[in-house]
């Protein structure tokens, strides 16, 4: 039984990093495909498209920081807490990354026709980033209570 609990603890430590990496990969790929499509139809502003498609890469950074914060000796007493915080923050980061990628793709698609809305079109992606930051910060706060 103890082995299972300890395994869950280790899973919780690595989950934010793994799920954050998956989120960034999927999100950047979605936004990247949109930027490639937009480049075939526009005459300039390619750097902006590529820059926007890199937005979801922040999720893996948050995941790495959470992983280091959770990283400690896993005991039967703290394994449950590590598992809960790690898995749930990882899932939150994953959803944020994927949907931020979609929001960035929509922004790129809209911006190719109307460059003047570039800043405003990024607002949904920025709001999603805010939710990712919530998941990140409160994972750090809560993890301080785990022995």
């Amino acid at each position, binding site marked *: 039984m103890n082995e299972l609990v300890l395994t869950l603890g280790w899973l919780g430590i690595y989950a934010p990093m793994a799920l954050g990496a998956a989120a960034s990969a999927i999100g950047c790929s*979605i936004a990247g*495909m*949109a*930027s*490639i*499509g*937009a480049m*075939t*139809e526009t005459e300039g502003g390619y750097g902006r498209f590529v820059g926007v498609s890199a937005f979801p890469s922040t999720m893996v950074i948050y995941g790495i920081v959470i992983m280091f914060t959770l990283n400690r000796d896993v005991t039967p007493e703290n394994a449950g807490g590590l598992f809960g915080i790690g898995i749930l923050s990882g899932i939150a980061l994953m959803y944020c990354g994927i949907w931020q990628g*979609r929001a960035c*793709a*929509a922004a*790129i*698609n809209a911006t*190719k*026709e109307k460059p003047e809305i570039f800043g405003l079109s990024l607002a949904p992606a920025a709001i999603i980033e805010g939710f990712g930051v919530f998941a990140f910060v409160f994972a750090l706060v809560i993890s301080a209570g785990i022995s």
Partner: protein
Amino acid sequence: MSDPDAYIALVSSLPGSERLFVAKQPPLSRLRLDRRLTALTPEDARVLRVLEHALNWGDYDMDVTDAQAIERCKEALRDIPQPTLRKLFLERMDLRTTAAALRLRKQGGSPSSGTFGMGRWTRHIPANWTDPSFRLEGPMPWIKEAKQLLDAEDPLGLERLLLSVSHKQLKKHAARHLFDFEAVAIYVLIWNIFDRWAQSNAQDAVKRFEHLAQQAMAGVAEIDIDGASA
């Protein structure tokens, strides 16, 4: 439901549609559009072909009967699995059925049986044949204007109204589909509306050119080769 991210690069590579009736040409040529559509999977490409084939007037013979056209639309409907595309197809059939009924009544005709056309109103329209708007003002608020244009014998105005209504219907569905197959299909159907409008303008221009040319050439017979009037 299609994969929501299936055609991100394809949709992003399509130029945005300008405002209908303001644009002189579709936003890109059919050749370029077809080149972009090679990114579709074989199954999606087949569904799009079926949809376009059933909706494009150019693919119908001039002497096609109502029964043949309806059968072709029913066959197409069986081949379209996406609920959104089925819905917009049926909406277009409703529009065409109603416009055809208005034209038939204007010519003094009446439906040969208890049903007319295809869609939701096949029984409703014959049952309300004498009502100016077939009692469809609620679901089809444009019908009053369509009847006025038909009575005023303004076919171009009526064409413009029907294309505008079709365009609005497509835009309504497009808002719920960003990068999936439905988004691509809706874009192609909007492109077809632009193309049809551009063609109708071109046909109008040719007619006007012929009229002006005939006017200009009318006096030519009266001028001899030396420049002296006959």
